[in-house]
């Protein structure tokens, strides 16, 4: 190959990635569909730092002193609120998008750590219920597989209004993944490119939704809490309306949140960053005197214990993870690099969850591929990961002098960029300046 001539300049506008995308569009005539979350760089939790205790604050002993992590979700109306041992839940991911083994592994891992998992588009499988001690049942616009018996088996109901990866958009599951079982669960012909509705079929606004919540409570005899999941956009208003409509728990998914499949243009260009959404939600809850009464669960790009601790310090009651849980199971693992390359990707880059070819056996319905994932081992790996990030969050909380991770507060945080300071509403490090607020 000829060496690159010195002085050649790649356009920042039309860089090779842009050129490749224009070529892809010109070749296929259709938008790029993929899974995973936003890949662009955004202000995020890495732009925040904790102020550990020194003179003005008193730390707790790193390993021994109690720093509790238990959280109760949805105790506003429900007879049986959800009590979890760690402030980290497993987000809703559908059977169909994920293999049965992956769902089982998520359940096993969550059980080991005393937390909850969540169903997804397509309904509840018996395996999933069997392997999850605490299972949240999603109530989605598509209502695929929606069954009142399953509703009554659930430990909580999550009304999905949107997802961070695609607020305002429905779901899609392409024909490759519509096997007999998936087709039957969703009452669809095998092999169709299935689109999940973006609007609920039987309510249109918050006033109707309030009545829908009553119906769900009536059907379940007011036993279980009702969560509402929103994709982060006009978060301040959406949270207020969700609380007014009767939500016991708000699940707030920032734009970095993962997805099984949607248009790339949607993932990268719609919604606001998780960091910006949290203060809006907390402000809305505080103004309604509902902060800590209606719990806030935040998702969208949570990777480690520092991210968890930062979410909690900003006012969340718990976090939820999707992508990180799949990575713990083996998604994008270097061991599968050859197999990823065989399908035109590489370990660390794989995002074509919709194609159903996942060599790690996670986002597939192919029995051979699925057998790559041992649900027992996957469950252990997920539990290890959850344990690790919980320990990390506790380490930070103790250093800030907190005997419960929920005692972390915005005053424990500073930002290292002006953008993050403005969005998270914490001062730029070394200053008292919160851009836009002080």
């Amino acid at each position: 190959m000829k060496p690159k001539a010195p002085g050649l300049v790649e356009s920042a506008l039309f860089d090779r990635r842009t050129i490749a995308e224009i070529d892809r569009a010109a070749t296929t005539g259709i938008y790029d569909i993929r899974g995973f979350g936003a890949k662009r760089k955004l202000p995020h939790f890495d732009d925040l730092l904790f102020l550990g205790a020194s003179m003005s604050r008193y730390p707790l002993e790193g390993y021994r002193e109690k720093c509790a992590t238990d959280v109760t979700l949805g105790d506003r109306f429900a007879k049986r609120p959800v009590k979890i041992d760690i402030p980290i839940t497993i987000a809703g991911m559908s059977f169909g998008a994920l293999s049965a083994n992956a769902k089982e592994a998520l359940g096993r891992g969550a059980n080991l750590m005393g937390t909850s998992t969540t169903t997804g588009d397509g309904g509840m499988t018996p395996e999933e219920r069997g392997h999850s001690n605490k299972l949240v049942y999603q109530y989605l616009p598509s209502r695929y597989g929606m069954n009142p018996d399953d509703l009554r088996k659930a430990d909580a109901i999550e009304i999905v209004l949107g997802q961070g990866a695609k607020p305002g958009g429905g779901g899609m599951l392409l024909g490759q993944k519509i096997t007999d079982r998936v087709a039957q669960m969703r009452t669809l012909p095998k092999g169709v490119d299935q689109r999940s509705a973006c609007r609920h079929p039987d309510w249109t606004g918050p006033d109707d939704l309030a009545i829908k919540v009553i119906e769900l409570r009536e059907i379940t005899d007011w036993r279980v809490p009702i969560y509402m999941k929103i994709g982060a956009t006009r978060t301040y208003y959406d949270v207020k309306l969700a609380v007014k409509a009767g939500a016991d728990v708000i699940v707030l998914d920032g734009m970095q949140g993962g997805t099984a499949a949607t248009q790339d243009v949607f993932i990268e260009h719609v919604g606001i960053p998780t960091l910006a959404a949290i203060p809006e939600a907390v402000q809305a809850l505080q103004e309604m005197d509902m902060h800590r009464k209606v719990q806030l669960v935040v998702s969208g790009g949570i990777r480690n214990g520092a991210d968890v601790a930062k979410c909690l310090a900003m006012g969340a009651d718990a976090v939820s993870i999707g992508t990180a849980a799949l990575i713990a199971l083996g998604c994008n693992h270097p061991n599968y690099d050859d197999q990823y390359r065989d399908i035109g990707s590489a370990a660390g880059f794989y995002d074509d969850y919709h194609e159903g070819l996942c060599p790690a056996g996670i986002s597939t319905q192919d029995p051979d591929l699925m057998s790559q994932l041992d649900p027992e081992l996957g469950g252990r790996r997920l539990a290890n990961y959850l344990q690790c990030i919980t320990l990390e969050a506790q380490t930070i909380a103790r250093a800030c002098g907190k005997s419960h991770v929920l005692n972390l507060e915005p005053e424990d945080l500073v930002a290292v960029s002006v953008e993050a300071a403005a969005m998270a509403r914490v001062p730029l490090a070394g200053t008292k300046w919160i851009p836009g607020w002080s």
Partner: protein
Amino acid sequence: MRNFDCDLHSVRELNQALHDVQSDGESFNVLNVKGQHALACGITHNINVSLQGHAGYYCAGMHQRGTVTVHGNVGVGVAENMMSGTVHVTGNASQSAGATAHGGLLIVDGDAAARCGISLKGGSIVVKGSVGHMSCFMAQAGTLVVCGDAGEALGDSLYETRIFVLGEVESLGAGCERKTSTAEDLSILSDLLAKAEIDIDPAQFAQYGSDKSLYNFSVDNAVLPEVSR
């Protein structure tokens, strides 16, 4: 027959009584329902419930067995996500009647408003009057029978649902087309007409269904040729 007076008891008490039924065959006569919401939802036993008066939203929601009869009109989402059994409305129904119903039979003696049978997943709906716009939007399976007219965009984005309309259709939605009824289609229709006690010749209904054009994305493959030198 148990009488239940909604002037004396709450909707919560009514539904709890209906959920607490231990055996099939009981009948409930519910008085003074006065348009309240979520009445008689989540019934799991083979019981008969008569609601006297108009009902609000989500009446007989997620109905699983037995019969609910509303002697009056109903609000949004009557019999939404019904699984089996029968729900009968003697008056008119508001929007999204029978939405996402997986099974069972919903009969509306009057008209049903917009989005009747939206996302229908196997249930049957018979409307003796007309239905509003976007009826059977994204409907997947099951049957809608309309003895009057249908509003705009009937059957938009639909999958395998059968739609029969006796009167005029204002317009068809994307991916919906007129079909020729097979013997199987006609037998399904005549069975539903009989159950709803409608005496009309099935052959007079026009049938609509999916043209399958939206079943798969269309992807071209206009690859540039490899350059050789």
